[in-house]
């Protein structure tokens, strides 16, 4: 089973001999809270190569943002604690580095953009100034040169009239334009890895598509590794190369984008895909996954998804499934991954008609 945890077999088409740009191995992050120790991330594994887009998909509280903050090293450490694992950037372990050398990587080699661009930009400084600051702090450019560079970056991310708008303040821009400015800041120093934490959640749909397109274009242009954190299945489909589905701080399923959407190998992924509302079954019920994600302070034994799973058996309630290959380049953390993948898994339970949890199929009441 340990072999299954190695990320080498993660994705089809990854260059096996090459050291990945970013590699996360068995990462564990905890939060000390009053209610006990909340295990936000329990043994997370993935790797990212140059030019690749990895989408980390999961619902709220699944540990997506904590993953991003841990990689960046901006996790608030008194409540948070890294309980184990490694994060390797080009083979070098980031977690054993001192703060100063990590800081030098931030923004230069690994950059991040946030969900809400308005609150992520300093309200009292002009945006051009804030972009120029990147060049001044990290590259030591003079004010004038940095200003010119900043305007160039603003033009590159598609801000009309960049020269005039460089002196404007964040609140004078629309949501999409603000996110473009955030992106301009993040890619200003040509980083190798860009982490985008729900970059389009605060935007409306038409602008979402533009921003995603921009990210994709920039990724190709700079050959960056892009980690796209999102809960929006629609956003991912267009842009991602491979997808890791997270649940309760673990990767439940990882595969390339066609596999995940075409033949999911985990009941949770199946549930997520089924819950996308369809235009063609108007009037029908929405097929939500019943129940809620487990509390991080009180994890169920066995598979974390078992209380909500339609296929759960006694084995799922006692034994924790490890991430293992079901098909080439397709990993799933489910005891019945093969059956789910093939579509032959036996349904043991179904959502209770009262909406409260699951009931056994045998007790089935008339529909």
């Amino acid at each position, binding site marked *: 089973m340990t072999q299954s945890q190695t990320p080498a077999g993660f994705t089809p088409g990854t260059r096996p001999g090459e050291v990945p740009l970013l590699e996360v191995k068995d990462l564990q992050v905890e939060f000390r809270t009053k209610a006990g120790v909340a295990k936000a991330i329990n043994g997370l594994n993935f790797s990212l190569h140059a030019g690749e887009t990895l989408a980390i998909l999961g619902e709220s509280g699944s540990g997506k943002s904590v993953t991003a903050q841990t990689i*960046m090293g*901006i996790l608030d450490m*008194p409540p948070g604690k890294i309980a184990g694992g490694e994060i390797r950037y080009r083979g070098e372990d980031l977690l054993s580095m001192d703060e100063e050398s990590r*800081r*030098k*990587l*931030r*923004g*230069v080699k690994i*950059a*991040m953009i*946030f969900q*809400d661009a308005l*609150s*992520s*930009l*300093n*309200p*009292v*400084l*002009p945006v051009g100034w804030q972009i120029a*600051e*990147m060049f001044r*702090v*990290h590259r030591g450019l003079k004010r004038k040169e940095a200003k010119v560079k900043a305007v160039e970056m603003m033009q590159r991310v*598609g801000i*009309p*009239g960049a020269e*005039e708008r460089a002196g*404007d*303040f964040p*609140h*004078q821009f629309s949501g999409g334009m603000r996110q473009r400015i*955030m992106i301009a*800041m*993040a890619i200003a120093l040509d980083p190798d890895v860009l982490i985008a934490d729900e970059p389009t959640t605060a935007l409306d749909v038409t602008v979402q*598509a*533009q921003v995603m*397109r*921009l990210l*994709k*274009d920039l990724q190709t242009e700079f050959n960056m590794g892009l980690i796209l954190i999102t809960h929006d299945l629609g956003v991912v489909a267009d842009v991602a190369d491979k997808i890791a589905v997270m649940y309760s701080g673990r990767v439940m399923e990882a595969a390339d984008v066609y596999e995940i959407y075409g033949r999911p190998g985990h009941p949770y992924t199946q549930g997520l895909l089924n819950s996308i509302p369809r235009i063609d079954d108007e009037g029908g019920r929405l097929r939500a996954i019943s129940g809620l994600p487990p509390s991080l302070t009180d994890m169920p034994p066995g598979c974390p998804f078992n209380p909500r799973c339609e296929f759960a058996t006694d084995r799922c309630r006692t034994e924790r499934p490890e991430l293992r290959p079901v098909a080439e380049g397709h990993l799933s953390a489910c005891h019945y991954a093969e059956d789910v993948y093939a579509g032959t898994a036996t349904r043991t339970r179904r959502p209770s008609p009262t909406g409260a949890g699951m009931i056994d199929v045998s007790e089935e009441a008339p529909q």
Partner: protein
Amino acid sequence: MSEIHRPEARVEPIDSTIEPAGEPAKNKKVEEASLLADAWRSLRRNPWFIISAVLLVLFLSMAIFPQLFTNNDPRECLLGRSRQSPSAEHWFGTDVQGCDYYSRVIYGARNSIAVGFIVAIGTFIIAVLLGLVAGYFGSWVDAVISRFTDMVFAVPYILGALVFLNVLESRGVREVAFVLIIFMWPTMTRLMRGSVISVVNSEFVLAARALGAGPITIMRRHILPNSLGPVIGYATVFTGIIIGAEATLTFLGVGLQLPAISWGLQLSDAQPFLQTVPHLLLFPVIFVGLTVFAFMTMGDAIRDALDPKSKK
């Protein structure tokens, strides 16, 4: 019919650059929108700001160029005209020593306002430094600074000043200001600390960290400019409080000493004659009152203007 709904539109690549807006030249002269420009715009419309600004300009010019307001020498005293009532020649009458009271009150502005400014600036510097460090670093740094602040805060300034100033042989503006700074900095420091804490956890500070800004850059560029607003407002109010405090200390006999000219000294000298020549008390009281009022109103107006939450 279904042709219209074919998903073709989605397959087409969506252009990541949107067409440039065709009106960059038109809105070239848009109004400045920085925090300061914004604050200035709302201040200009605030009648209280106008009133206090006019008063402050008046008192400041009194302090800097008293000659503009009077041709009389405040130190030219003739005992023969002691305690005269206001007249055309001596607008505010004369004091016990027979000096022209109007020119003495005018000249008194300098020392009072000087103490106010020196103490406000000194306190401001201490408060900003300590508040920034305590609020940014938190944990034990914050604990040490905050508890020390509380200790000083517990000492009433009058008590502290009485003890300290009584020991000093000669007391001028410098000594009084120094002692006032020592006992008056805690309030503003607490304000600054609170203001910093409310900014430290904001998303743009996290974003700045994620893009590799060090602690100094974050404090200077991100936290300081976003947390100064309330402190600047309070510092202005504080100047007024200090002018009152200086008058109090001088009145109690531990502030400035003769032959200095100050409103506090005038109040102190006028005390025995309250019933016979009340104008000796009245005029300096009006001047102290108006100065304190002007600073406080100005401070309130500035604080409101710099507070983004109070905007409509």
